[in-house]
């Protein structure tokens, strides 16, 4: 892997000063760690960096919502309902109850991002734990967990979400928990697969021989080695969770009224689309942009981890071109 990078890196970025990984390192200097290598490739990916910047902006807006939003998002002002964008101090106008649309968008980003990130964190934690136990110990533990996953995925995630939210009631904490509970299976399978490979490695044997406990091996050695694919999965899961939240809120089974999220704004907008069609456009655009940013970041990390695939394809495409040009 590392000599592969050394061979191909100069061809990719000829203008760049020699990257530290292909210069002969002085023996005293520590070689760059895997995180640094990934960051180097990640930061040269324009899509991924754009995604990162956009996501950071949204996160900052969500954190400083009080300072950013010019109005109270819940303040009803029937005298000023359905104002056009730019009228008065209302940047994007007001909705059917006279609430400032821009302020509502700003406050909605709080809920949407919070749901997205907490779902991803819980699901990744749960999925990694179950996948790790399943993959490391194998045997009947593995069988039980895999059957559990079979049961979970024999119903679509959205289906289970709707069922639970409708039966148990729409509380934010239920929403986060059920979204997490229906999205850990992918991570669990991934981690299990990684562990099945990794547990045969010699360093695991060495660790075991020196008396490291099973849990020590799982957490210190194996999970760290499987961490990159998990991170990619977690990133993509943030986007998925934001989309699911908006869908459930749209159906009236997610976030409830005094709180506001992009999904709720969309479900309101459908009733009033004759009066103000733009009401539906803004929140949807916000969701699209955030999820797109998150997905770009996830893809960026994935590409940074495994640059081989794309390059070989490019090379192949070039080869094919030359092949057909030479007229054989």
């Amino acid at each position, binding site marked *: 892997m590392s000599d592969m990078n050394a061979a191909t890196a100069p061809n990719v970025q000829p203008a760049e000063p020699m990257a530290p990984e292909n210069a002969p390192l002085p023996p005293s200097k520590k070689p760059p760690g895997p995180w640094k290598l990934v960051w180097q490739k990640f930061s040269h990916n324009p899509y991924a960096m754009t995604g990162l910047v956009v996501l950071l902006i949204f996160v900052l807006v969500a954190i400083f919502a009080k300072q950013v939003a010019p109005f109270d998002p819940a303040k009803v002002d029937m005298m000023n309902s359905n104002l056009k964008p730019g009228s008065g101090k209302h940047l994007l106008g007001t909705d059917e109850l006279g609430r400032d649309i821009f302020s509502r968008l700003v406050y909605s980003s709080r809920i949407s991002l919070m749901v997205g990130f907490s779902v991803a964190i819980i699901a990744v934690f749960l999925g990694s734990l179950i996948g790790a136990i399943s993959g490391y110990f194998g045997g009947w533990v593995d069988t039980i967990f*895999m*059957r559990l996953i*079979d*049961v979970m*995925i*024999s*119903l*679509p995630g*959205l*289906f289970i979400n*709707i*069922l*639970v*939210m*409708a*039966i*148990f*009631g729409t509380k934010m904490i239920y929403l986060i928990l059920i979204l997490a509970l229906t999205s850990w299976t992918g991570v669990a399978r991934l981690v299990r697969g990684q562990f099945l490979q990794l547990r045969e490695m010699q360093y695991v044997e060495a660790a075991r021989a020196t008396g490291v406990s099973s849990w020590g091996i799982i957490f210190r050695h194996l999970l760290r080695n499987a961490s990159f694919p998990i991170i990619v999965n977690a990133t993509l899961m943030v*986007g998925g969770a934001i*989309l699911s939240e*908006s*869908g459930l809120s*749209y*159906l*009236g*089974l997610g976030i409830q009224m005094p709180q506001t999220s992009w*999904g709720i704004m*969309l479900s309101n*907008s*459908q009733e009033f*689309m*004759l009066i103000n*069609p733009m009401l*539906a*456009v803004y*929140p*949807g655009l916000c*969701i*699209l942009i955030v*999820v*797109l940013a998150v*997905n770009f970041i996830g893809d960026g990390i994935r590409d940074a981890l495994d640059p081989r695939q794309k390059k070989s*394809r*490019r090379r*192949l*495409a070039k080869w094919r071109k030359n*092949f*057909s040009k030479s007229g054989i």
Partner: protein
Amino acid sequence: MTEYLIRRLLQSILVLFLVSVAAFGLMHAAPGGPTQMMISPGLSPETAAIQKHNLGLDKPVPTQYVIWLKNMLKGDMGYTFKNNVPVGDVIWPAVKNTLVLMSFSWVLSLIIAIPWGIYNSTREYGLSDQTANFVTYIGFAMPTFWFGIILQEFFSLKMDWLPLSDMYSMDKQGNVGDLFMHLILPSTVLVLVNLAGYVKYSRSSMLEVLEQDYIRTARAKGVPERKVIFRHALRNALIPIITVLGMDLASLVAGATLTENVFNWPGMGRLFVDMARSREYSVLMAITMITAVAVVLGNLIADILYKLVDPRVQIGRKGGKA
């Protein structure tokens, strides 16, 4: 093959059984549960107890489950709480309507996606490939129901070209032309969603095959490129595509919950949300089981097709998708 089939079937039945237990338990674990829904709050405790006894709700939950399972296996899905209609009368029309919408958009997306993906695999990073990439990114990042709302706003309200929602116009029940007009917008949404996955999938499946040695051999011995693509590569590239299609078979029955709700399409997705809101437990159980059967059956069909189409896959191979 027979042994494999039997094992897979048993496995599927086990999964379905577990799903039914989990769903039944979930509904009875809910605060209030069916008891609260079925017994009107105004009844005196004595009458409530009698009604509870008549409905079988005073028995322990496992016994209730066994009774439910027995009835279900006999094809009796129970009655709705509201109006006391047989559950089948509510569900089967919805299944039919969903099948109309889903099969139409599914076939349409396949007709577009597979040739497009194959074309893109032969011209990597060309304009068409980049467009497909763009569509994929947008399709995966966009709330589908939002796209539906935007289409409604533009094509129905602003332009008044297409009907806003529902399956038929009020005065044209059963008119095929009218149905087609109503199909356009929801299937546009569904096709875009499907395209996002299928184009990319068929492209990468094709690319993988094009890298194989036997393709190089075919080219080297002078087989025309067209024949290489359609004869040698496509046949092998279709194998993984078929399996993915099998897994998506379930959605033909389960429906597209959000799209059906946006367009007020009287299918399974909308029925499910309505029933979940009003907590019609017997209908919910029935829909859950139908959906689970569809998913499990779809996976089974995908696995079997995979083995039938690709002789390289050993029949007795352990595991499958576990």
